């Protein structure tokens, strides 16, 4: 049974089926989306069970697509793919449960969600560069429509900006892919082979240019300062589920790409620029945190913390690429980076749900206009506090082990970078506590005094995420043993 292909294909087919659903059955799109996602989840669960943690790329499914160009439908998993694919499914379940735009889920919205889901899964599982790129761009289109159709006030502008930036990012990636394809003999888009053969190993300027092309693309997606300016606009204007998926899943495309392509296929070039990349990541981490500190809009604040958290990922990846790093440090850094992506997906997903609920209840996300929300909404408030503490890296919650591993790995090669990076955790702590203090503590004005607490539907969507990030925080090896970068990261 081609489980992986099944996991990708079912959402896509369901997306195609969405327009055909009868208009009368109002619940049908939602149920279809849930069913399709459930099938995906089941297929991934089977894969998880069959997965051999000791081996690298495995369970590869392969079908010829365009033999002329050596393009194949080639999907497979290694630790990173599996972990991120699982994250994807989890977040999509939550998003579908939460809904997009008008309720119940419309056919168009369900279709877009499913399209996005299929494409994202395809991206994480792809072992062929054309599939990889196709998935990369399809996510762009689906997300564009999600934002532009169901977003908030300035959705058009934000959607355009998102589209523009991501396209600017994706096209250099295409050039890079072509360059890799052309340098491999015989020409191939097979990522496994490209990673094994490393056709550009040791070649100077060419490798650097290709590296730069990929890096720009993934840096925009990740995003790394200064390529991040699309992110706040897109996050703020997107509908709640859109923000969740954008931050939870789509940002991971960049980090995944950095590891999968830049690190695995161009290690020599990466080693040359590792310190520069790490410094960019450091700037991202600190800058994101600082800018987040000044935000009064909760969604913008969360958006900028994404810049901060993804900056850690970049630092970890860069550290793993550096020449001086020990094997232990390398594994720590990459394990940490991947775990950070998973954890950030769960935590930030929760945070965006929180912001969405807040906006829905109070009509504003401006922290200056809110106060004392813990009183009318104690459960919600506790959830907020939990998610905030998770995001600021409190031990026992998922991001702590991830960040710690990244720091440990980075310290191995650049102690100064690691030491400065650690300062970021103070700033994030500050910004989250400020927000907490401002909006959730203190006196509650009358207009906020009667807000309803967390509704069942919302709780069902959010609770699994919270449970997951707590569990991961207590026992990160649940995922780390699967990620196990040692088994697939070729020694550099």
């Amino acid at each position: 049974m081609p489980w992986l292909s099944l996991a990708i294909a079912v959402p896509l087919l369901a997306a195609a089926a969405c327009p055909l659903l009868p208009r009368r059955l109002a619940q049908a799109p939602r149920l279809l989306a849930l069913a399709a996602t459930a099938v995906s989840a089941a297929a991934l669960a089977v894969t998880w069970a069959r997965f051999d943690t000791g081996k690298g790329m495995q369970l590869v499914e392969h079908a010829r697509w365009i033999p002329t160009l050596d393009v194949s439908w080639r999907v497979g998993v290694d630790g990173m793919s599996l972990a991120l694919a699982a994250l994807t499914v989890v977040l999509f379940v939550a998003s579908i449960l939460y809904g997009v735009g008008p309720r119940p889920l419309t056919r168009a919205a369900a279709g877009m969600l499913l399209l996005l889901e299929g494409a994202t899964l395809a991206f994480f599982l792809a072992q062929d560069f054309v599939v990889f790129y196709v998935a990369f761009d399809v996510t762009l289109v689906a997300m564009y429509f999600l934002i532009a159709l169901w977003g908030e006030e300035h959705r058009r502008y934000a959607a355009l900006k998102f589209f523009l930036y991501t396209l600017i990012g994706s096209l250099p990636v295409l050039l890079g892919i072509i360059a890799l394809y052309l340098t491999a003999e015989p020409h191939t888009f097979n990522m496994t082979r490209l990673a094994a053969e490393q056709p550009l190993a040791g070649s100077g300027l060419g490798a650097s240019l290709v590296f730069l092309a990929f890096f720009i693309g993934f840096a925009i997606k990740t995003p790394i300062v200064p390529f991040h300016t699309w992110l706040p606009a897109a996050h703020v204007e997107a509908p709640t589920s859109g923000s969740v998926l954008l931050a939870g899943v789509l940002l991971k495309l960049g980090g995944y790409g950095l590891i999968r392509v830049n690190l695995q296929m161009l290690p020599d070039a990466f080693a040359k620029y590792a310190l520069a990349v790490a410094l960019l990541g450091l700037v991202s981490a600190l800058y994101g945190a600082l800018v987040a500190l000044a935000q009064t809009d909760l969604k913008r604040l969360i958006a900028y913390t994404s810049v901060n958290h993804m900056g850690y990922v970049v630092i970890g990846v860069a550290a793993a690429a550096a020449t001086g790093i020990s094997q232990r440090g390398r594994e720590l850094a990459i394990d940490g980076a991947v775990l950070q992506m998973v954890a950030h997906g769960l935590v930030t997903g929760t945070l965006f749900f929180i912001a969405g609920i807040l906006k829905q209840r109070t009509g504003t996300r401006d922290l200056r206009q809110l106060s004392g929300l813990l009183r009318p909404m104690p459960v919600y408030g506790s959830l907020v506090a939990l998610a905030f503490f998770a995001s600021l890296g409190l031990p026992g919650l998922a991001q702590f082990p991830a960040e710690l591993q990244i720091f440990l790995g980075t310290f191995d090669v650049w102690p100064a970078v690691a030491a400065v990076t650690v300062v970021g955790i103070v700033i994030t702590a500050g910004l989250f506590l400020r927000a907490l203090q401002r909006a959730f503590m203190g006196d509650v004005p009358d207009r906020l005094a009667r807000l309803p607490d967390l509704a069942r539907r919302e709780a069902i969507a959010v609770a699994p995420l919270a449970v997951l990030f707590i569990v991961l925080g207590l026992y990160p090896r649940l995922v780390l043993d699967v990620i196990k970068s040692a088994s697939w990261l070729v020694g550099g």
Partner: protein
Amino acid sequence: MAVLLWLTVGLPLLGALLVKAAPSRARPLTVAAAVASAVPPVVLLVAAADGRRATSGFRWLPTAGLDVGLRLDALSAAVSATVAGIGLVVLLYSVGYFADDDRRASALAGLLGFLAVMQGLVLADGYLALLVFWELVGAASARLIAYSRDDPQAAPGAVRAFLTTRSADVGFYVALLALFSATGSIAFGQGRPGGAVGALVGIGLVVAAMGKSAQAPLQTWLSGAMAGPTPVSALLHSATMVAAGVYLLVRSESLLAGWPLDVAGWVGAVTAVAAAGIALAQRDLKRVLAGSTASQLGLMFVGAAAGGPAVAVFHLVTHAAGKAGLFLAAGVFQHDRDSTDLDELRGAGRDDRRAFAGFALCALSIAAVPPLAAFWSKDHITAAAEPRTAWFVLVLLSAAGSAAYLLRPALILWDRGGAGRTLAAAGRRWMLAGVATLAAASVVAGVLGEPLVRLLQAPPLPTSALSIALSLVAPVVGALAVLLPLRPPRLLARAADRGLYAAALQRWVVVLPTLALSRWLRAADDHRLDRAVDAIPRPALALSLLLRGAEDRGLDRAVDAVAQGGVAAARGSDWVERRGIDAAVDGLAVAIGRSGSESRRLQSGRLYEYLRDAVLGATAIALIVALTALT
């Protein structure tokens, strides 16, 4: 043993979850949990005294060396038992304290939860586990400080507490990274690696300890933390959590040996005096106690640096009992008068004599009046500091200060001028029981010194005649400093005439000589002397006011300034964000649009212009080709 270790952490946690789950049965559940939680540490202590050692850990992260676990050894057993004891008392007290509070389940669960992570901190095996619980303790602390919804100071206090400690925790992180990077291990008991990495480890751990233990210049958060409920202050911000810094120093003795401990000692010595001055000038009882805590923790730092683990831990234990007792008593007064402001509390002790008795006993202990507990432990610290004159002087100054800052509230509490009202509050019995227990402990805990030394297999506690003598003198000087200038002679005389202090002070032999001295001074009626004596405390007072001012304005403002600087930087980058990069991108879009409009002018609609441009273009192409072909 492993089971007991995990139970020590698990039982309070379980209790917390149960209380949270069944808020209506919070009281019985809390009592049960508190009592149950106290059992394993005691058993552990016995086992440790028996020479048993154990560790129980598991691989938390896949990389070799990054295990997380708990350990039983002499130090952890001793501190764990202390935490458990204080915890038990405070929890039982809390049952009473929160009796009227409809959110008591939350508070009690919070306290139980804190107890769990605090035990985890104490029992942690290896720096990774220590860091985990270290951070959790901070978060639990912030949560508990922010408990009050009525106090506008609560939320900012919690935020400041968490942020200050977390800033210091950067040191812990860096130390951990450096240690692991250098040695590949995060186990306790390693020697300090050489070079810059070793320096990072040393500095990092000391900074972390300073943050947690509210040592200068990071002490400001502690007074802000007093916005939390009083039992919280008693448990977290006097007895246990803040002592974690001392615990870290003791635990890391092998890593910190040498200059890092010296740094810690200096920090401790300076803090001991500075915080004492701060305490002297506070107008809020709990803040007085907070200052006192910082000061005493400074003494512990000195003890750890100069005298070794046993000295520090001994004072930790005695101080925990005394200070927690003081807080608990303060909580009783707070319930009586619904305030902790000293002006409001005037006379509260007279109205509630049982509580005042406990308060006074604990205060005397902290003020190092023999033969109460803290006298002995502080004496060892003084003795240990003797070889280093500067520390020695500072320690003595702080001893004097401790007498002063405790006497002042005691006098106010016993004053007659107060409102004389007592709010009947539910749960008084629980509370008074707690005060009594700790007062008793403050009396007897002094005997623990020798057993502690045996348990820790430490060298005998240092002592010397000089230190004992000066230890005895110092509190007296401190008390005088309070009694003389702050009481106008007429008032003092009237007070003496009426036997104002007699009833209270006669019971405490230690204060009697002080009072006698004051009488003698008054009898001498020597204005010059009077003035001279008057002159002594004035600079001290000025200094303490200055310090408090620094505390409230200077340092706080500095902290705020840092925060505001951060926010300003953040705003700045936000501006850059909106105006700079974004504008550049948008500007590019505008430029494209504009060039598009420009290009429309090329398409003028006039055919001959099209043709002419085409001809020119073709010529240009030909020329370009010619140039490339010819070169």
